[in-house]
C-alpha cells in the first residue's frame, strides 16, 4: 500500500489519470476496429517528431525564463535552414545536415536577441515570449514572399516569386531519420529507430549540459536568482544562454518534425507550434521553473498518445468523419488542462 502511495505521490495524479485514459483508449480500440499496432506506431512516430521541440522547453524553464512560448522563433530559424539547404540543391543526408548547419547561425542570432529582450522584461517573460513568437511569424509571412529564393521546387508555380505554403521534402530528405535502422513487424507496425535515436542523442546532450558548471549555474539561476548573483554568477548571461539553447533546439526540432511529416510548412505553419510543446511538458509534470528530461519524455508520450488515439477511436465508434474536430477539441482541451496545471514553485 505504502509503495503505491509513494508512486502516486511521485508521479502525480494528473499523469496517472491521463495514462489511465490513454491505456483505456488502447483497450477499447480493437472493439471499434482500430488496429492497436498501427496506433502504437503512430504514437511513437509522433513522439519522435515532437520530442525535440518539447526538449527545447527545458533550458528556459530551468533558468526561470518560463515556458518558451516564443518557440516559433526557433522554428523559423529551422525553416530558414531547410529552405536554404534546398535552394543550394542539397539532398539526402547532406541536405538534412546542411539544413541544421545553416539553421544554427540564425538560431544563435535570434536566440541571443530574444534572450536580451527577455532580460529586460523579467517577471513577464511568458507574455512577451508569446508575442515575440506571433510577431516573428507574421514578419516572416512577408519575408517568405520577398526573399530571393529561386529553386523551382519551392516557389509558386504562377508568378515565379515567393515560397509556397507547403514544400514537399520528397526527393530531399524525406524520412531520412525515420528510415534509418527501421524495425518493421507485419505491415502495420514500424519503429522509427533513427528518429528515436536522434531524440535520445539530443536528450543526452541536454542531460550532460546540466551536469556541467554552466548547467548547474543555470539551474541555480532558476531556483533563486539572488542566490546565484551572490555566488558571483552573471544571471543575465545564464538566461541568455538558456534562451539560445531553447531556440537552437526549436530549430533542430522542426527539422526532425518535417523529415517525418514530409513537408516544410511556411507562413502560418509555426504559429501554433508552441502550445502543444508547452502542454506536453506541463502534462509531463514540469512547473514554470523546474523541468527535466523525464518530464519531456512522459509528457510527450501522454500528450501525443491521447492526440493520436482519441480521434481515431471516437471516429470509428460513431462511424462518421469527425476526426479533425475531435482532434482540435482534444488537443486544445489538453492545452487548457495543462495550463491550469502551471505551478510556480515557491521560493
Amino acid at each position, binding site marked *: 500500500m505504502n509503495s503505491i502511495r509513494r508512486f502516486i505521490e511521485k508521479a502525480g495524479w494528473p499523469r496517472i489519470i491521463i495514462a489511465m485514459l490513454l491505456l483505456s483508449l488502447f483497450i477499447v480500440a480493437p472493439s471499434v476496429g482500430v488496429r492497436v499496432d498501427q496506433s502504437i506506431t503512430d504514437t511513437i512516430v509522433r513522439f519522435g517528431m515532437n520530442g525535440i521541440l518539447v526538449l527545447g522547453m527545458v533550458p528556459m524553464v530551468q533558468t526561470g525564463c518560463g515556458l518558451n512560448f516564443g518557440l516559433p522563433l526557433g522554428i523559423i530559424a529551422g525553416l530558414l535552414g531547410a529552405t536554404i539547404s534546398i535552394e543550394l540543391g542539397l539532398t539526402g543526408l547532406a541536405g538534412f545536415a546542411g539544413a541544421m548547419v545553416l539553421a544554427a547561425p540564425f538560431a544563435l542570432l535570434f536566440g541571443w536577441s530574444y534572450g536580451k529582450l527577455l532580460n529586460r522584461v523579467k517577471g513577464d517573460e511568458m507574455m512577451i515570449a508569446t508575442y515575440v513568437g506571433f510577431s516573428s511569424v507574421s514578419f516572416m509571412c512577408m519575408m517568405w514572399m520577398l526573399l530571393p529564393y529561386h529553386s523551382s521546387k519551392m516557389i509558386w508555380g504562377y508568378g515565379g516569386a515567393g515560397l509556397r505554403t507547403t514544400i514537399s521534402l520528397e526527393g530531399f530528405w524525406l524520412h531520412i531519420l525515420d528510415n534509418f535502422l527501421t524495425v518493421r513487424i507485419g505491415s502495420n507496425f514500424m519503429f522509427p529507430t533513427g528518429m528515436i535515436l536522434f531524440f535520445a542523442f539530443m536528450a543526452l546532450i541536454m542531460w*550532460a549540459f546540466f*551536469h*556541467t*558548471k*554552466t*548547467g*548547474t*549555474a543555470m*539551474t*541555480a539561476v532558476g*531556483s*533563486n536568482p*539572488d*542566490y546565484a*548573483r*551572490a*555566488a*558571483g*554568477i*552573471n544571471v543575465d548571461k545564464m538566461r541568455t544562454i538558456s534562451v539560445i539553447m531553447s531556440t537552437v533546439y526549436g530549430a533542430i526540432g522542426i527539422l526532425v518534425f518535417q523529415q517525418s511529416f514530409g513537408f516544410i510548412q511556411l507562413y502560418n505553419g509555426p504559429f501554433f507550434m508552441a502550445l502543444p510543446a508547452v502542454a506536453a511538458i506541463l502534462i509531463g509534470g514540469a512547473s514554470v521553473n*523546474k523541468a527535466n528530461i523525464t518530464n519531456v519524455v512522459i509528457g510527450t508520450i501522454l500528450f501525443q498518445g491521447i492526440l493520436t488515439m482519441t480521434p481515431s477511436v471516437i471516429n470509428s465508434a460513431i462511424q462518421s468523419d469527425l476526426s479533425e474536430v475531435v482532434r482540435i477539441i482534444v488537443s486544445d482541451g489538453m492545452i487548457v488542462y495543462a495550463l491550469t496545471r502551471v505551478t510556480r*514553485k*515557491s*521560493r
Partner: protein
Amino acid sequence: MTEQQPLLHMQGITKEYFGNRVLTDVTLDINRGEVLGLVGENGAGKSTLMNILFGMSVIVQTGGYTGSVSIDGKEVNFQNPFDALKAGIGMVHQEFSLIPGFTATENILLNGEILHDNIVTKIFGPRLKTLNLPEMRAIAEKSIELLGVEISPDTLVAEMPVGHKQFTELAREIHRPEMKLLVLDEPTAVLTESEAQVLLTSLRRLAATGIAIIFITHRLQEILDICDRIVILRDGQVVKEVATSDTDIGQVAELMVGRSVSAKSAATEDYNESTETILSVDQLWVDMPGETVRDVSLEVHKGEIFGIGGLAGQGKLGIPNGIMGLYPAGGAVILHGKPTRLNDPAAALAAGMAFVSEDRRGVGLLLEEALDWNIAFTAMQAQNKFLRPLLGGLIQWRDDKAIQNVATEYIKALDIKCTSTDQPAQELSGGNQQKICLAKAFAVQPDVLFVSEPTRGIDVGAKALVLEALRTYNRKNGTTIIMISSELEELRSICDRIAIVDEGRIAGILPPSATAKEFGLLMIGKVKSEANSHE
C-alpha cells in the same frame, strides 16, 4: 492564586497532531491587568496553545483538543476566531494584517465602522449607510493615544514605518470596548530597540487599564522588563511558572532550552592588537535601501572576530552587502594589500571573501534544491571546486560525488539535523538552514568571512550552536570573521572588537568589555564627535 476569579483559565490542555503529541496537560491562568510572558523554543507549543485559545480552524480540523478553556469562569469552546473576537480576545501577529492603501483610522475600525443613515439608505436599505468619519477618527485617535505614540490617524499604512504599522495593528485590537485579553506574538521582532521600548511602555499602560496581555517573544530581556509572571514551555509542557521578580534571564534561558546555555565567554584573551591588517576599508559608501552606508573606514586585523553593531536602518547591513558587491558601492576595499573590485560579487569571492547573508531565505539558500547543492554551489562557481575537467578542460563536469562528500562532512561537523544530503533546504528549521548557509561559506574557505545577522529568527539553543560554530571555525582555521548583528549581547560574547554604526558612519570601536552604557551612547549617536576627533 488570589481569591479573584482568573480572567482566562486553561486547564489540562492536551493536543495531538496525527498521533504526535505537541501539548501535554498545560494549565494556565491569567488575571485582569496582568502581563504574562510565554516563552519557549521554536516548536515548544506556544503557537498551538494560542491557536487553541483562538479557535483556529487548524485545531478543529485535526481533531480538536482535550482539556478546558474558561473565560471569567465560564467554559468556552471557540469554533472559529470570530467567536474568540466576540469574547474579547485580540491577537497581534508577527506579520502585519493591514490594508496598505487605507489610512490608520480605516484600518483600526475595519469591519467595525461607525455608520449613519442617509437618504439613500431609507430607500435601499442599510447596506448603503455612510461612514461617520469624524467619529471614527476620534475613536482611532483615542486608541492610538492610549498606546502613547504619535501617529496621525490619516496616514496611509503604506507610508508608515514598520514600527507605526505595529502600533496601528495594536490600536485596532484595543479600540473595541469588549477587549479583555490581548495576545502578542513576537510584536517586537520587526521593531528597532527604541520602538520596542515604546511598545513595552504602551503595553504596561494597557495592562493598567485592566486588559490582560499574553506576550510571546524570543527576546528574553523584554519579557523580564514588562511581565508580571513568566510561563516557560518546553516540548509541550509547562516546565516552570515564575513571578518575574524571582528569576533572571539566565534561569529563563536555561529552563527554555533545558540545558545550561554556556555563560558568555569573555573576549578571546589571545587577541593581539599588533597583528597585521588583512582588510582595510576606506571611505566606503553603499546604496542599500534602508541601510545606506555613507562613509565607513575600517581596519580589520588578521584572525580576529570583528563585530559591527548599531540600530536597525543605520547602515550596518550595508557594509557587507556593499563589500561583497550585492549593492552599488564606492570607495576602496583593500584585502591583503590589494584593492578588490566593487560591484562584482564574483570578484569579491575570488579575492577570498565570503558572505552569509542576513536574508537567509531570499539570498542565502536555494530552497528547492538539495542540501549538497546549497553547500557546494558557491565554491563550485566561484573557485571551480568540485568540478572535473573533461576533454582537456573544455567541459567542466560537475563532480556529484565530491559535492556529496563535502556536504556530508559539513553536516556532520556542524551537526545539521536533516534526513540526507538530498533533502531540499526548505524543509529544514531556521537554525539548521542558518548552519547550511555557514557551511556554504566555509566551503569557499575564505580569508575573510562576513556573517550578517547569523542568529536572526532562530531560537536560543540554535543561536548558541551557531555562535559556537563560528568561534570554532575562527580558532581552527584562523579565518578573520566580521559579524554584523543587532544583538549587542551576542557581539559582546564572541567578538574581539566591536564597531558601532550610526547614520552610515562608524561611531566608534570598543572592546567587548566596555559597558553597555558606552555602547548605548555610541548607538544613539551621543559620542560621535568625540569618536571622530580620535581619528
